[in-house]
């Protein structure tokens, strides 16, 4: 298949993830959608690596995976902490950081 197809798929996945971030209220699901976006980017990276024949894209994709893992860890830690303090798990309610 031409590489272009893979790129289209990656764009679609990325935008589904973006839409999910905007639409959902549960922070857990928002984090999942963030994972979607990261995966879309990963796909694009690997596709380009195939296109040019260099492995740098794949290395980059691995690093992105590392970053995603860290981000998930910290994000879930935050959610656990919020849950412990008996606050509602709802991003529309957690709006104290305002001006």
């Amino acid at each position, binding site marked *: 298949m031409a590489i272009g197809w893979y790129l289209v798929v990656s764009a679609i996945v990325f935008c589904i993830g973006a839409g999910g971030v905007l639409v959902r209220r549960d922070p857990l699901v928002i984090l999942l959608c963030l994972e979607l976006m990261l995966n879309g980017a990963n796909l694009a990276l690997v596709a380009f690596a195939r296109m040019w024949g260099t492995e740098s894209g794949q290395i980059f994709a691995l690093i992105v995976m590392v970053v995603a893992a860290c981000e998930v860890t910290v994000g879930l830690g935050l959610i656990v902490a919020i849950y412990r303090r008996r606050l509602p798990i709802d991003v*529309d309610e957690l709006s104290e950081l305002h001006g």
Partner: protein
Amino acid sequence: MSTTTFAWLVLLCPLLGTVVIGLGHRWLPGRSAGWLGTAAIALAFIFSLVVLIKLLGQPESHRQLVSALWDYNVTSGVDARMQILVDPLSVFMILVVSGVSTLIHLYSVSYMNEDLGYRRYFSYLNYFVFSMLLLVLAGNFIILIIGWAFVGAASYLLISFWYRRTTATRAGLKAFLINVVGDVGLVLGTFFLFKHTGTVGFLRTFHEVRHVFTHNQPDLVAACLLLGVGAFAKSAQVPLHTWLPDAMEGPTPVSALIHAATMVTAGVYLIARMHPLFEHAPTAADVTAIGGGLTLLIAATIALVQVDIKRVIAYSTMSQIGYMIMAVSVGAYSAGLFHLMTHAFFKALLFMAAGSIIGAMAGVQSLDRMGGFRRALPFTFACFVVGGLALSGLPPLSGWLSKDDIIGYVLHRGGLFVVLAVIAYIGALLTPIYTFRMIFRAFFGEAVEEARELEHGHLHHAEVPRNPMTGEEEDTEVGFPGPGHFIAEREWPMKIAMGALAVLAVIGGVIQIPGVDDAVTNFLKPTFADSRLAHVQTPTGASWVGLIIGAVIALFGITLAYRVWVAMPGTAASLEERLPRLHRFLMNKWYFDELIDFVVVRPVLWLGGVTSGIGERVVIGDIVTGGATGIVRAGSAAVRRAQTGFLRYYAAGMVVAISVVALYFLVSS
């Protein structure tokens, strides 16, 4: 060592005195601060004598010596140096200043003996002497201005010496403010001159003045008038004179030194020093001469009705300085300076004697409460009489020779100056009247309680110390006069000082007897060599006629005073009843204070109120500062509304932004 080195040493001694007493006051035992201060000035006087001798050793054409310690700025179009000018005029002045100051320091050692501010006093007094010496030794306008300002500051410090008295602090402020007006005149005058001559050094300025300015050129007249403003403020001439009577709030030795012998003569010195300028702009000289004449008369009339003994002497000083200003304005330089010297002697003597009798009265200064002290205070009485006779101009005392020298010269100048001479003779008539009014009221008549106590050997002490002007109660701690009162009969330092001045007041005139010797004139000749007026000497015969007229007037005045206040007591009271409005006019000092209050003080206060109320509070506070902060606050409030706290709106914003940016790049490619 050269002459100028000794002149620097003259400056150094009182400066060291100030610093040592001021910084080391904690470690100076007992009353040593006073002896240290006196020694410092005595040393300065000895060095002045050395300078005199060395200067006389030089040939006459080489008697104007300049010495600079360091340069301030001698490049960009100005030649400012730390420079002194040692010439006959400055040597004359330093001799008078340091000599009289030594005697006054000696007097103060006992007069201020129990004052808690003893060391501060001597530090300030030494500082004053240093400033005055700096002023008269100055070799350029910069140092002159510095000395001028220092003297003003010292005067303020010493007038408000008893700082817990409100009257004293107010008087100090008044003196300082009026002096500042004079400082402004002095500085502006300097600038006017510098603008044309391009130099600040005295000798070079005087040399240049004939080339750079035309006769009576407006700029030069303006400069001289401004210098005259400075002189008038410092010498308490009308209309800048209102500070001098109030300055009597300071301790009596301070009045003797500053407001009789030295500081108030700074104006006379200034005009004498600037004589080339004044001679080249006769308009300005005429103005100052008229000012001096007016002051002479006004002050003499006010002195006739004053009740405070120190104020009588203060107004007398004002009047006599009027004589001196008139003299140096019309060209009678040596006469004016000779009178300066003799006046320093007998006026300081009068003040010292006044201090003695005030001590006997335990701080009371009012003539209404004094009387009959002749037997109780014989030495003080003698000093008063000697000083009074010298002041009145009775032969053969010094005052007679000096004062009538001046009047003779003015008369000889002719033209409209005859009017001034007549005014001067009227003043000469009033002088013995007010002087002997003071003496007769204090020493003749019924002896008051304090005098009777003193005759029995007991010095009166007030149970409650009071402010002599307002009568309010005070205590004797720091900031007020100390508990001790001292009279000359009991304190040998006071006796020595007064005795020395009395002797000088009697024989001091011997150095300038017309026709016999003209020591002062000859000595000052190198300074005034370039003057066109100084050479015009009154012929000996005419001056002797003037002297005799003066003597007659003095005798007449004394006799008149005797008749009014001793022979027929009650004459003064009946005169007062018959001329109430005149009396009130004179008692209110010709309403000068009220005039200045109306013309100057009120508008300035109003302006201050407007500036602070509207300018400061409204414009700067509300509009400028408030406006700026308001704008910032409004802006940040507007921006703050974007921070809602909702995560998804932030995310939406990010997505939109990315889309827009990508779109932009798409379109532009």
